[in-house]
Every structure is written in structure tokens, then in C-alpha cells.
């Protein structure tokens, strides 16, 4: 009996090591979604009442000739516009002089990045090598000979950015090779994995855009009820 108890106790530390080998949580696709906002805490929005919004989502890519599908563009434009209207902003639709008539301009952009994971069995490390987002077709970093690798997996991560710029404060470039500078008053961004059906991704985009505006109460132009 004592010998059996002795053998049983030796199992305990082995269990401890096994327990400690898998501390990571399992994450669902929704768990990986993020809604991000950036604003200077001292930014005062009270002077801003009107906005102009471009009816285009700029897709950031290195390939100027790339034919980007943009299948969620209409949804993104529509939802962002509606949120600003719901917050009490007035939209300026005159495209001829919006820089002088609208208090702020809203610009939408999107980018997709491929991230790959390589599992190096020999060292038992997990590495991730982000593809250079300017070259989405690049095969990735070379594998050193002598380090066997298991098959890797990867996924695409999409980000939509909403920038609010004060066009009246635009600074024209002094030199030829410089760009104009525009102060960005507020940025909202949604980030998540581009996996699943279009309907699934569309639903998550809506949820995340809603959250971006929910966590930006300072954008409200509506007076509080007395």
C-alpha cells in the first residue's frame, strides 16, 4: 500500500507540468474583434457641427493597379454616415466647396494584412511572421535548413479606419516633395479576422462600428435633456 502511495505521489508533479503546458485561452473569431478610438483628451468638439463625408473607402495597397473588391464599402459608408447623423451632426453634401463649408471631413480607409504562423517543432516555439503588407503574394521568410517545420496556418486581418479631419487647419507644404498636413481630431477603427461568410463578416462590422461610436460620447452634438 505504501509503495502504491509512493508511486501515486510521483504523478503529481508530472500533472503540474502538463497543466502548465497549455495555459492559453481558446479564442473565437468574435473574441479577436477590436473597436479602437483615438482622441486627445483635451480635444474640444463643441465648435464642430457640420461634416462632409467622402463616398469612397480608400483601400490601402501597394499595387496601384489592384482591383480591390470592396464588397463592404457601401455598408461601411452608410453606417458611419448614419451614426454621425444620429449624433446630431449636419451633413454638408455640396462637393464644390466643402472644405470651406463643413467643419470637419470624414475619410474612410481600409487595409487587409495576411498573418502567417510557422510552428518550429525542434525548438517548440511559436513564431509569427507578418507578411509585408505591400506584397501580399510574397511567400514569407525563408526556412533555415535543419529546422524542420510543421505546416503553418494563417489568416487575413482587416482594418477599417474612420478619420475626422479639420480641413480649415490644413497646412500646405512648403517644399515640393512634402505632403499637406491635416490635423486629425478623432480616429475610429475596427479590426478583425476576415474569416467566415460575407453575412457573418458584415454583421461583425456593424457591431464594431456601433461600438466605436458608443465609446465616443464626446462626438454627440445633441444637447442633454434638462
Amino acid at each position, binding site marked *: 500500500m505504501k509503495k502504491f502511495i509512493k508511486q501515486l505521489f510521483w504523478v503529481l*508533479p508530472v500533472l503540474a507540468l502538463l497543466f502548465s503546458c497549455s495555459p492559453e485561452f481558446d479564442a473565437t473569431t468574435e473574441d479577436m474583434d477590436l473597436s479602437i478610438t483615438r482622441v486627445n483628451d483635451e480635444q474640444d468638439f463643441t465648435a464642430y457641427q457640420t461634416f462632409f463625408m467622402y463616398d469612397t473607402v480608400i483601400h490601402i495597397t501597394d499595387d496601384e493597379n489592384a482591383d480591390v473588391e470592396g464588397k463592404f464599402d457601401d455598408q461601411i459608408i452608410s453606417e458611419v454616415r448614419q451614426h454621425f447623423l444620429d449624433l446630431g451632426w449636419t451633413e454638408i453634401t455640396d462637393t464644390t466647396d466643402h472644405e470651406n463649408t463643413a467643419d470637419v471631413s470624414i475619410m474612410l480607409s481600409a487595409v487587409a494584412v495576411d498573418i502567417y504562423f510557422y510552428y518550429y517543432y525542434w525548438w517548440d516555439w511559436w513564431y509569427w511572421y507578418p507578411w509585408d503588407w505591400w506584397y501580399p503574394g510574397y511567400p514569407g521568410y525563408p526556412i533555415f535548413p535543419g529546422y524542420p517545420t510543421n505546416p503553418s496556418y494563417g489568416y487575413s486581418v482587416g482594418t477599417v479606419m474612420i478619420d475626422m479631419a479639420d480641413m480649415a487647419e490644413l497646412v500646405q507644404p512648403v517644399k515640393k516633395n512634402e505632403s499637406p498636413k491635416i490635423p486629425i481630431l478623432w480616429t475610429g477603427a475596427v479590426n478583425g*479576422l476576415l474569416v467566415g461568410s460575407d453575412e457573418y463578416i458584415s454583421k461583425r462590422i456593424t457591431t464594431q462600428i456601433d461600438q466605436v461610436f458608443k465609446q465616443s460620447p464626446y462626438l454627440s452634438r445633441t444637447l442633454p435633456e434638462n
Partner: protein
Amino acid sequence: MKKYIITTILSFIVLIGTAQHYTEVFMSYLPAVPLGKTADFTPGFSPRGVDFEANHFLNDDISIGFNVAWTIFRNKVSGEIFEYQDLDIYGTQFRYQNMVPLNVNFKKYFINGDHSPYVGIGLGTQYVEMRNDLGVFSFTDDKWLFNLAPEVGLLYDLSGSTIVTIKAKYNYSPKAGDFPSVSYLSFGIGIGIN
């Protein structure tokens, strides 16, 4: 994560290699409860812990030794905003804390037949890594901190060379700069040889 396993196993091998006559070597399963600032970041009991220890007896009731341990706390937080510089980030947070204390131990035993209660104190250093994973992004901060670890326990002699141990150990590391203090209470059950 795997580097902590390698560190603890290598430390244990060193302990075994330097063990001399009347030295006891232990390996224990060490679940823990976070306290204070540690619990603020990752509350809740953790079943993930292990420690390795070697104690050399200076006489029948006093030993000096070395202990290396590894404890992992983790917590999943949903529906909260994480502030980072001028960003407000809303998403599911996966928080982890890895603690690897390395201590020199001093213990006093109260021998009572085959049962030996003891009290002890450990002094040394502790490596702490705090990590917060949000989406595909990860925010990590780590530090080596001074560590103090008082301990009480019991040794039970199963046979001439096999010993069972149970213990309770409080680990405390004071804050260093912006890095918060660390405190947790571990409960160990293990087995050893001499």
C-alpha cells in the same frame, strides 16, 4: 511560455547535480491564489504551478537550499475598454501573468517521528511577465523583482528515502518603478528523495 519550462527544468538539473549527502530534493504541484495588484490583473485561483527544491541539512533540524518555481495566472475579460496611451481599445482581453521565483531557502524543522513540520523563509529574485492579448495585438511588460517567500509546511517520511511534502508559501515582490507589486499564496503538495 516554453522558456519558463526550460528554465525551471535546467535549474532543477543543476540542483540535482550539486546535491550532496543528506540533501533532499523535491518536486511539487503548486496551485496558487493571487492577491493585491496581482489579483487586480488576473483574479481567481490558478491550478498551474510547479516548483523544484533542493535542501541541504546543516544539522538535523536546519536546512539551507534553493527553490525555483513557475506559476501562471490568467484571466479573460470581455466588454471592457483597455486604455493604451491615447487609444481606447474595446475587445476581449486575454491576460496572463507568469511568475518564476528563484530563492535561497532557510528552514527550521520540528522533528516528530516521521512527521516534521517546518517554517522557512526564501529570499531571492522573481521574474514576472504580464501580458495582455487583444485581437492580433499583444502588450507585454516584464521585470526582475526582489522576492520574499515565507513558508510553512510538513514533511512526511514515507520510507527511508522518499518524503511527501505539503506546504503553504506566500510570495511577495515590491513594486519597481511603474511595475506593480506582486503577491500570491501558493499551496504545494509534492514528493522528494534524499
